[in-house]
């Protein structure tokens, strides 16, 4: 079967966002993959440099639709630290609540899309139906289903009234029961196991070598979680633990994400119950002193990093956003070689790509995953080498 070049995307039903795969497949086996993702590059960093802090937040929130609160919290947290400004505890609790609710709706969304990738539409419908409960809570608290606009340099813009708090608390038990249902459904649903187990396997060393982050890394036993490593907001004094798995394939990532779903629910419940009284924002100084900081935040997809540099004016001199999906693309390319054509959407969906975050890179995958065009037969030799190694191992 001669090599067939299959262009998938940028307009493709499997990918909710524009990414272009040029897959060179030998029959059903993938030999080579070129990934071009920069369709959603809009030049946000240049625009952020021209805007004051107040106006930069709405822009930075719209880097990505699903993890919008992550971006605005990472930015606000970084600028506040540069200004040596501590925000009131109530504001920190509210930010954590919204952040964890966003993680819940993002993981439920992912679980549905992953099931849709393998054609299992029932789970797609069920998970998104439960996600609506989380969306209602978010809409009550912040007024918008997606871009919440809760953050501001110096605190939070809207307070949580007691009625909102116990309305949210009433929805949690039903969600909890649904999550336990999904846990056992993923474990013994025959076709899901067939399509998820053993696909896109990453060992612990490969994860560290390719720099994978978030649930993708935690599924192979690497326990990097910024909320535990570099605790910010109230994660230090709320009881929760990092969810890891050892199987390292798409099945492991599914279990990690559902585990994190349950953890987030626990965090939200304890935050809602111990919401301290007090003001919700502090008036920030007009300008930020000269300095730079690496503000790290655990977004639903992994470790989000904002490198913020200020130069004493009321604007930011430089914002360098490195999104979690950008770090995951190398590991995707590495574990896609020698897989089946039918597995591309499942493996790509496994890292839960948020392309509007990434909008960065094209990588040409080779056998061992570092970038660069390589001659055709050298690639063949590498993949055969890799097969022999796998047989040997």
């Amino acid at each position, binding site marked *: 079967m001669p090599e*067939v*070049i*299959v*262009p*998938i995307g940028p307009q*493709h*039903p*499997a990918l909710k966002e524009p990414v272009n795969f040029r897959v060179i497949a030998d029959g*059903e086996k993938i030999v080579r993959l070129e990934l071009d993702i920069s369709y959603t590059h809009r030049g946000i960093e240049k625009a952020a440099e021209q805007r004051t802090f107040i106006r930069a937040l709405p822009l930075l929130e719209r880097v990505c639709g699903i993890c919008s609160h992550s971006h605005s919290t990472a930015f606000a947290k970084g600028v506040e630290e540069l200004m040596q400004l501590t925000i009131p505890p109530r504001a920190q609790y509210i930010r954590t609540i919204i952040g964890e609710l966003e993680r819940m709706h993002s993981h439920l969304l992912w679980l549905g899309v992953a*099931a*849709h*990738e*393998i*054609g*299992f*539409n*029932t789970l797609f*419908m*069920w998970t998104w*139906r439960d996600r609506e409960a989380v969306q209602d809570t978010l809409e009550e608290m912040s007024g918008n289903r997606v871009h919440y606009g809760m953050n501001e340099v110096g605190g939070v813009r809207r307070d949580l009234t007691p009625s909102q708090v116990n309305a949210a608390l009433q929805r949690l038990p039903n969600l909890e029961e649904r999550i336990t249902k999904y846990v056992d459904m993923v474990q013994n*649903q*025959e*076709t*899901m196991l*067939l*399509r998820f187990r053993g696909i896109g396997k990453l060992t612990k060393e490969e994860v560290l070598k390719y720099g994978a982050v978030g649930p993708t890394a935690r599924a192979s036993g690497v326990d990097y979680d910024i909320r535990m490593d570099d605790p910010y907001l109230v994660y230090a004094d709320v009881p929760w633990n990092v969810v890891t798995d050892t199987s390292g394939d798409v099945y492991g990532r599914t279990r990690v994400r559902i585990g994190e779903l349950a953890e987030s629910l626990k965090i939200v419940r304890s935050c809602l119950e111990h919401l301290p009284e007090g003001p919700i924002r502090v008036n920030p100084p007009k300008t930020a002193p000269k300095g730079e900081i690496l503000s790290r935040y655990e977004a639903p997809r992994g470790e989000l990093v904002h490198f913020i540099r200020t130069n004493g004016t009321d604007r930011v001199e430089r914002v360098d956003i490195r999104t979690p999906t950008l770090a995951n693309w190398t590991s995707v390319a590495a574990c896609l070689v020698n897989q*089946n*054509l*039918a*597995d*591309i*959407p499942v493996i790509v969906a496994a890292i839960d790509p948020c392309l509007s975050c990434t909008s960065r890179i094209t990588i040409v995958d080779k056998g061992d995953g570092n970038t660069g065009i390589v001659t055709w037969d050298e690639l063949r030799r590498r993949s055969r080498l890799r097969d022999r190694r796998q047989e040997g191992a």
Partner: protein
Amino acid sequence: MTDTPLIIVYIFLFPGFLFLLAYAMLFEFLDRRIAARMQHRVGPPLFQPFADFVKMLGKEVIDPQGVDRPVFDAAPVIALAAVMTAFLYIPVVSASPLAFQGDLVLVLYLMALPTIILFVMGWLSRNIYSAIGGIRTVTQMFIYEVPFFLALLTPALMAGTWSISEIVSWQQDHLWFMVLQPIGFVVALIGLQAKLERTPFDIPEAETELVAGPWTELTGRRLALMHLASDVSCVTGCALIAALFLGGPTIPWTIAPVWLGWICGFFLFLAKTLVVLLILSSVKVATGRIRIDQLNTIGWKYIASAALVQVAVVLVMNSIRVGA
């Protein structure tokens, strides 16, 4: 029932084409409604398949560059014609007047035609997605066709005739084949699910990998006819399995006026085909899609061997009965 005007009415009007088209659209409505209700949704209204069909007819027909139009136009019509004629040999009211020895083989052949035509459409439309979709259609066909045929021919073996109507009448005074040959019944259901390319086996039309498989380049009336052909083949398949395994439209005790017997037979036929559809739809909702190589291993390892076991059992039972 042999004089020609009645036969013409039989072919074109009642259990023939007009009824078949209406029943096919009802089937698609029921299928989508059952799937929606199981997914906690409301599902489309009754006239939805008809509205889709008419809208697709009204759309502009786009020919991909470099495709030869006549074949691309003729293929859906052939597929639809093949499957509709197959329905004529399946007893609907009672024994079908057109029955002859060997109409079971003819029906199986006509049912296989749309899959091949889908491959031809995929290959013709010069689009990488449809080409790969077409190849997958044919590879899937090789996998499920053998067990499907075996499962459907074992009732003929036991009943000793090759005509569907006679198998149905044989079942009247014996047990149903679903009871006599349970393995054959299950294998036939799996085969039909694969032939109709429904979810556990809708690999060629995998919406998430290849855009729409062989269906990608179909627009306008071609899409309408091909969509109708797949609906009609769903009806024909369900009716075939209902006839062969669930005893078809006959009642054990005879009712005095003949036309009352026909009406009861007709309702029995409706009930049994709807039962088969219910089974297929619930399987479609409850499973995800499996990969083509997994289907290959499952298909040949389990389904084909199950069919062979069934044939062996039937041969043994035949020899005992013939011997005793």
